[in-house]
């Protein structure tokens, strides 16, 4: 852990530093992205490996040491700059005393980035050290795991913003008609993969500390399995994520604008009609008073806003139907994902959900939806009873075979059905082995026969018979736990039956 964690942090820092450097260089072309990135990465590497040593020796006096470290960074950066670019022309005293030479833009920016990265990584390392500590009481307390995940998300957002800016300029962002940017963004992928692995490791460490405090022994195979399951879990999610569609040719904002235009147009027509209808009698009265011979008419309807031209939205003059379907599918997928996330978020926070439900517009919307569903279900029910539908249904029923093949899915059965299934399976197998139930025998009459043939499973047979009796002849509710226990009993009986079959 003393090697992997610092290495992981360094890799993640490199992933973040690279696009930031690229964006800075795009703004100030005279700078060198590799120099800025290297400054950040080497700083993170140094902080990661000296963190433990320094904490142990210096304790709270760490900030004085960090200040000295910053000074050393500056000197090293300047020396590196000199080593790469050489000394400036002119007399030594001229540039040594020239503050602009010392505090040139690239060195300053590199220093600022290095210090920022150093602070971020130092905070992360402190949180790693705090993993498993006892929670403190207080509103401002944030656990180490929450702090680490927060830093992970923040770093990810910063990375994605800068990685995006490195590929799409600010001006281009405002252009909703530009084509999408395709291809792999390596630094983003590496950052998130390494980060997820570190989070998984932190999770394991947190649990291990908790179990150790409770005196629970952890098995030695837990860690290697944990690693395997983590890799498989992330791998499976990544595989599906790579398969899901992402590209679409229609401009997103243009599509949203088009939908909005259509909706506004429809609304405009409805409002105009309502206002016109309200004004019509007033207009007629006014005409009577004026004594005008011209009958009142509806005013000319001003044209609604024109809908957007779909052809202008797409990058091609008219995209093929497949492209259009794909684009709509992508947008629907995104909307579905976001809706699912929001729904889960609200479901996990019942207080917030209750507050939202109490809002008047949402209440009205729910009432409208309930009324609509009621009306639609009534229409469907009455449509079903119309003569052609009834005739068709009866015809289909008559055509169905007397004993249609049906597949019984135990997993889909109710607990009561499951218990009955297990007992009937017992009867079937016992009958196959020659000691089946005779028709006059009740379950209690048959139990001694079973016990005689399967003496090793006598308690299980009694339990199974009792479970069947209660399920079959009483109205007691059968819980899934009871079905599960009966299943375990049935499995033991089945093993005894198989053993008897082998011995025979």
């Amino acid at each position: 852990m003393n090697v992997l964690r610092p290495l992981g942090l360094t890799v993640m820092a490199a992933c973040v530093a690279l696009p930031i450097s690229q964006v800075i260089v795009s703004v100030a072309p005279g700078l060198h992205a590799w120099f800025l990135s290297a400054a950040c990465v080497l700083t993170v590497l140094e902080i990661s490996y000296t963190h433990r040593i320094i904490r142990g020796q210096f304790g709270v006096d760490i900030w004085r040491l960090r200040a000295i470290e910053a000074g050393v960074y500056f000197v090293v950066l300047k020396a590196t700059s000199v080593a790469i670019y050489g000394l400036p022309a002119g007399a030594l005293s001229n540039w040594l005393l020239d503050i602009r030479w010392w505090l040139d833009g690239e060195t300053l920016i590199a220093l600022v980035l290095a210090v920022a990265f150093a602070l971020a990584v130092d905070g992360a390392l402190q949180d790693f050290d705090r993993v498993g500590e006892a929670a403190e009481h207080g509103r401002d307390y944030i656990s180490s795991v929450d702090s680490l995940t927060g830093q992970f998300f923040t770093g990810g957002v910063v990375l994605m913003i800068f990685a995006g800016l490195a590929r799409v300029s600010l001006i281009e962002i405002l252009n909703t008609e530009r084509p999408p940017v395709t291809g792999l963004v390596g630094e983003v992928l590496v950052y998130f993969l390494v980060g997820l692995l570190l989070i998984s490791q932190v999770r394991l460490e947190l649990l291990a500390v908790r179990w150790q405090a409770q005196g629970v022994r952890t098995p030695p195979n837990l860690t290697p399995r944990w690693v395997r399951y983590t890799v498989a879990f992330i791998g499976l999610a990544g595989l599906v994520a790579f398969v899901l569609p992402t590209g679409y040719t229609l401009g997103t904002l243009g599509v949203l604008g088009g939908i909005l235009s259509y909706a506004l147009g429809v609304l405009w027509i409805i409002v105009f009609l309502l206002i016109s209808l309200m004004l019509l009698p007033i207009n007629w009265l006014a005409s009577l008073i004026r004594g005008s011979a011209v009958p009142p008419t509806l005013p000319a309807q001003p044209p609604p806003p024109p809908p957007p031209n779909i052809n202008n939205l797409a990058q091609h003059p008219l995209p093929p139907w497949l492209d259009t379907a794909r684009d709509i599918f992508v947008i629907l997928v995104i909307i579905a994902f976001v809706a699912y996330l929001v729904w889960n978020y609200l479901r996990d926070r019942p207080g917030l959900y209750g507050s939202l439900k109490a809002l008047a517009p949402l209440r009205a919307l729910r009432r409208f939806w309930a009324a609509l569903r009621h009306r639609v279900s009534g229409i469907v029910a009455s449509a079903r009873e119309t003569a052609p539908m009834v005739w068709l249904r009866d015809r289909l029923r008559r055509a169905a075979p007397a004993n249609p093949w049906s597949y019984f899915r135990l997993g889909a059965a109710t607990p009561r059905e499951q218990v009955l299934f297990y007992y009937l399976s017992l009867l079937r197998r016992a009958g196959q082995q020659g000691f089946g139930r005779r028709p006059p025998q009740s379950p209690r009459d048959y139990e001694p026969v079973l016990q005689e043939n399967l003496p090793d499973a006598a308690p299980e047979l009694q339990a199974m018979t009792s479970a069947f009796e209660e399920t079959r002849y009483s109205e007691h509710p059968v819980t899934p736990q009871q079905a599960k226990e009966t299943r375990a009993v049935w499995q033991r009986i089945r093993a005894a039956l198989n053993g008897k079959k082998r011995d025979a």
Partner: protein
Amino acid sequence: MRRFFPFLLFLFFIALILRIDFFFTIAYLFFLLFVLARLWVGRGLQQVYFERQFTPRAFSGDTVAVEVQVRNSGRLPVPWLHVHESLPVEMISPPFHSEVFSLGAGEHRFFRYDLHARERGVYTLGPLAAETGDVLGLEPTRSTNFGSQQIVVYPRVMHLPRLRLPTRSPLAALPARMPLFEDPARVSGVRDYERGDSPRRIHWSATASAGRLLVKQYQPAVARETLLALDLNLDGYEGRRRREASELAIVAAASLANHIIVRERLAVGLAAEALDPLTHTRERFFLAARSERAHLISVLEVLARVRLVPGLPLGAVLRRERPRLAWGTTIVAITGRADEDLLDALAALRQGGFAVSMLLVQAPDLPLLTRERAALLGISIWPIWREQDLEHTP
């Protein structure tokens, strides 16, 4: 995981604004991690089964080994499973057992622990709480409880080398004594026909086999019944030694029942009024006298769980149960206080044709008058102070 939802929504937002396809893939990745974690954790617990294997009955002083099997019957692995089994503090310290497992698909594990049956009683093993979660902490840990089971610890049974309880039954002749009557229900063998034997005693199948007349021989009638009347009234024992004395009384009752059924092969019953910890109410216990081993277990089951309770004094219990007693039953009253009410009840029973005796458990010395009265009534009294005194019970 804190701030996961805002982060994920922000990912989608950035991807939408920047229109970089790969950012959508990253957003999908996190979304799928969230959904799969939820499904994985939810299914994980549903497919885990537990089964305890142990002997549900034990005697005081025994060690009971409990083996718990944890089985993952599904196709999804369970990355970690923390099980915590609550155990009775009287039988194990600390009163719990915790383990952590990682279960692959279809895999099972065992864990074992030993319980020490120090005191009689009915104890509960479990419930067993199981907790699991995902590897990234996206989904809160989920836990569930599995059922509990009971283990019954019988009271200690002392070895009684001999027991000469009084009897008033003409049929109650112990095997060591001269049998006066025969029990026609118990055939002990055959012998040659002798002049004067009743034709009803001819054993026809044996006669046909042997070719000569053979008659049945019967065992001596062993119909003596004994009722153990156990006093579990709070006032039936001295305050300071109440618990110890009542436990000794229960041990005495168990030992007597065991000796009578196992050694003497006679019938014994039990009458008591006590607190039943299973129902938390005062219960009236009456087990009619029987001589089977299974009946002994029933008696021990009751003795395992009864507790002292403020209730009827023993004399009132005897008077209440008298109509159920067969004529000639020997009544053994086990109590810690021989008061006048009890003596009156025993005297009435004696006059009614029952044989009575009394086991006084850690009781103070009886007044002279009481002892004389008991002797006059023919009520034998045996004081016991320790378990070892039972071995010397005449």
